[in-house]
């Protein structure tokens, strides 16, 4: 299942959020060699990990440990595309109540493939469910060019926002992922899910 973690229920998921920040360090800093700040030698945490961030955490059903996660930021406030990389957009950076940014999609490197694979299916479905439930029409996403084929092969309705640019030796691009009920149907059918994967608490709706 995938938990929706907001400022309101964060305390309850303190341990899993810690694992998430550790896994983000292992994936983005150690493996991908991104130039990101590391706190306490083991946590990747940046200026956008604030109370406005919402995390979708996929938890291992028995141990409730972190399997994979994604961070969502409202584009009405500071976010990666608007604050750090507006030059990736050909025109205006898309912002609004119904536009959220997805970042830091990460799968724990500590688990065998059969636990986390096929990578991203549950988090992918959770992203679509979250968007449909909370009135999000599209996500914006800054990613590496090398990951683009994989992303569009998963069935997201993807549109580029501007030409890719080389920034700090990496080719980055900005995209929007449009969300519709058809996306949910496609993902559920493809991955064989008939039921929602999001684990909602009443207070999580405060997002």
């Amino acid at each position, binding site marked *: 299942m995938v938990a929706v973690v907001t400022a309101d229920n964060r305390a309850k998921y303190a341990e899993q959020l810690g694992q998430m920040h550790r896994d983000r360090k292992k994936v983005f800093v150690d493996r991908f060699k991104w130039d990101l700040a590391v706190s306490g030698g083991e946590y990747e945490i940046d200026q956008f990990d604030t109370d406005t961030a919402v995390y979708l955490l996929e938890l291992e059903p028995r141990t409730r440990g972190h399997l994979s996660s994604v961070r969502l930021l409202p584009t009405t406030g500071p976010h990666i595309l608007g604050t750090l990389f507006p030059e990736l957009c050909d025109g205006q950076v898309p912002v609004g109540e119904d536009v959220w940014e997805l970042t830091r999609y990460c799968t724990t490197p500590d688990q065998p493939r059969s636990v986390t*694979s096929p990578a991203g299916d549950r988090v992918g479905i959770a992203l679509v469910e979250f968007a449909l439930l909370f009135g999000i029409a599209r996500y914006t996403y800054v990613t590496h060019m090398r990951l683009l*084929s994989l992303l569009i092969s998963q069935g997201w309705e993807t549109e580029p926002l501007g*030409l*890719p640019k080389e920034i700090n030796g990496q080719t980055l691009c900005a995209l929007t992922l449009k969300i519709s009920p058809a996306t949910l149907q496609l993902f559920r059918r493809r991955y064989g899910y008939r039921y929602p994967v999001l684990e909602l608490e009443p207070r999580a709706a405060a997002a």
Partner: protein
Amino acid sequence: MSRFGDVQDFVQQANRVSRFPELAALMESVSRSLGFDFFALVHNVDFAGKDILELQNYPSSWHDLVKERKYFADDPVLVACQHTGVGFRWSDVPRMITLNGRQKDILEGARTAGIGGGFTVPVHIPGEYAGSSSFGVRNGRDFKDTALPAAQYVGCFAFEAARRLLRLQALSDGKAVPAPPQLTPRQLDCVLLAAQGNSDWHAAQRLGISDQTVHQHIEDAKRRYGVATRMQLVVRALFNGHITFSDIVH
């Protein structure tokens, strides 16, 4: 029109094409507007089949030579795709891989057939054959670096359009979605651990199952691929994209 405008138009049209000839026409036109003469959307494999992608407009003399000499499996451009996730100029290939004599012949053969140079975008999708989108120019012509960011996008979205058409084609043929033999997640774990050099015992420790069970998963995976040895199994799993070189190196 701006290059980005070209990309946006292309993405919209590519999402709508319903037949391969339409995609080919679209590729011809977008390749020209980006300053290229040729395009190729292919699975990087050396056998033909209905589920294998091969859509291109290279000169027929080159196409014939490729078929006659089986220049496909070790085409240096396609081999170089295994070394990167982003697009590269063909002129960079000698810096990416060490060319053997036959591979130098292949590059020379392409020039003789009238293909002067190009740019290739690799496409790696787990569980599928490796693929690529390429753009080429005639001898004596060059292309501009400023066209390459747009070519990257076009390459990725064009390949996705081709994947969609392959699936449609398979559906209308009444066939299941074309795919290499699939492994179960547990088989995949065991194959990956074996590829990383683990014994059955070590793999069993990692996965928390018995070494007999690991052995059984490996045997079942071999049967699915129709291969006799672990070595063949690992090679096939790599080839089909179930595991990647970076999985093994990490």
